[in-house]
């Protein structure tokens, strides 16, 4: 990652839960509110050293993906006109992952307070379950039906009016 800023803190080091280190450009890191907060705090203290931010909840393979997202969005941060291109990229980005990765990515986006990525993940998950039946949703997400038949019937009858 190229360093462009002349400010005291141009890069930070992020540590994943499995102890891998990632050197991240400040602008890229700022896409995550969690990292941005850490950087701001350190800058207030006047630290000139490169700081290390440990993320105990994010594995390195997921962190790689979050940072890939942040990097792309940092490139477009000052440019609203490229919205369309970025949207397309976002869509392609998520399409690559299996549901397990998507799950971890969503959790990581939430933990790292990367709002746009979190919204993107939620919308993507919602879009992919939209047209499925309850059975199909359980199947693709590997979820056990833990309702009793009575509870299931109650939910079904809760709002008979929603017929479309």
């Amino acid at each position: 990652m190229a360093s462009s800023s002349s400010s005291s803190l141009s890069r930070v080091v992020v540590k994943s839960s499995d102890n891998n280190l990632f050197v991240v450009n400040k602008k890229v890191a700022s896409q995550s509110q969690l990292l941005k907060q850490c950087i701001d705090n350190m800058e207030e203290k006047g630290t000139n050293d490169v700081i290390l931010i440990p993320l105990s909840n994010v594995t390195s393979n997921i962190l790689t993906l979050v940072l890939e997202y942040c990097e792309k969005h940092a490139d477009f941060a000052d440019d609203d006109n490229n919205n369309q291109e970025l949207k397309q990229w976002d869509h392609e980005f998520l399409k690559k992952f299996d549901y397990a990765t998507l799950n971890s990515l969503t959790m990581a986006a939430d933990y790292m307070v990367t709002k746009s990525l979190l919204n993107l993940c939620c919308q993507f998950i919602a879009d992919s379950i939209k047209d499925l039946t309850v059975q199909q949703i359980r199947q693709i997400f590997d979820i056990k039906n833990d309702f009793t038949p009575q509870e299931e019937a109650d939910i079904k009858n809760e709002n008979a009016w929603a017929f479309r």
Partner: protein
Amino acid sequence: MSGRRRAVCWSDLPPELLSKIAECLDSRPQIQQFRAVCKSWGSAISPSVLTSKNILSPLFPYPLTNIQYPSPWLDSPTQSPVLVSTSVFLLRSTFDPNLPPWLFAAEELHPGKLFVSKSLSPIAIENFPTDLDFSYIQVSELAVFHRVRSADDPTDLFTKKHLSDFNDNRVVLFVHPSKITSPTTGIGDCTAMVLHHNGALSAIVLKNGREVSISSMLRKFDDIVNFKGNIYAKITYDPIVEVYCGKRKRLAVSSDQQELFLIYRWCRSTVSDVVAFNIYKLNEQESKWERVKGFGDDRIILFVTFDGCFFASVNDFQGWKGNCIVFYSACFASYSSLNAIVLVRFWFITWRMMVVNI
């Protein structure tokens, strides 16, 4: 890369994330499905998420936020215009097919709240049953219409029993041909053609709320439909819209969208109870109207309502004759100046058929 595989469990996703995902769903049935997946998914969704979603269509009601006071649409600064859709539903009993069907219209001004009216008139159905058991009822949607309403009080629509109290208008949506093929086309790319109660026609660009008047002071329009794209009235405003007009005339598009009929009602004499119709079918090749005897199909009935016209199959209405026109006189005025109050065949909705509800 870590070689360690972490077990991922979708039912253990934190409730706030599950709730966020559910909020991205479009309609209430989708959220209900979501809640039925497992206990943790079900309990993560608060009732407020459920009631905030639309029942009829994920697109409507569509708030026209860009239209602000002062505007002809609004009587006061606190009001806001909303584009709503009305669906005409036909309910048939699957329990006993001989029971008469039930026809009604449902409009959703606020997500999750329906105004249910008799299908041919804007009169509210009171005491609408809330416990319909849809395992015994077959629901089909015969038509969808749109209109703009202005609302300031969320309960506004539901306190009024007769929708004719509103400034009535009819809306047909158009998408610019170049936009149709784009995957990102949404309702924001539509232009709403509005036929006002006084016959004036205007277009609202939904994206920015800009309203452009199309009709001049003298020209009035009776009806408006979106049909294939064969009739073009080129106007000075982009996009090109398909508009056809006529005085006291109604336009009806066949169910398969392949034929366009023009119907007008006239009085044969000064005797007010003699009613006649002229029916024309569009000849697309020669771009002209051809007089026809009927709709060319004994199996269909044309309904003319305040909101627009739609065809229905005679099979759904036992004992009815096909090739006929059903309307409430007030919504289809006679072509002559005689304002005959004639009820040609107004079908009264009865509660009898609801006996199926066991």
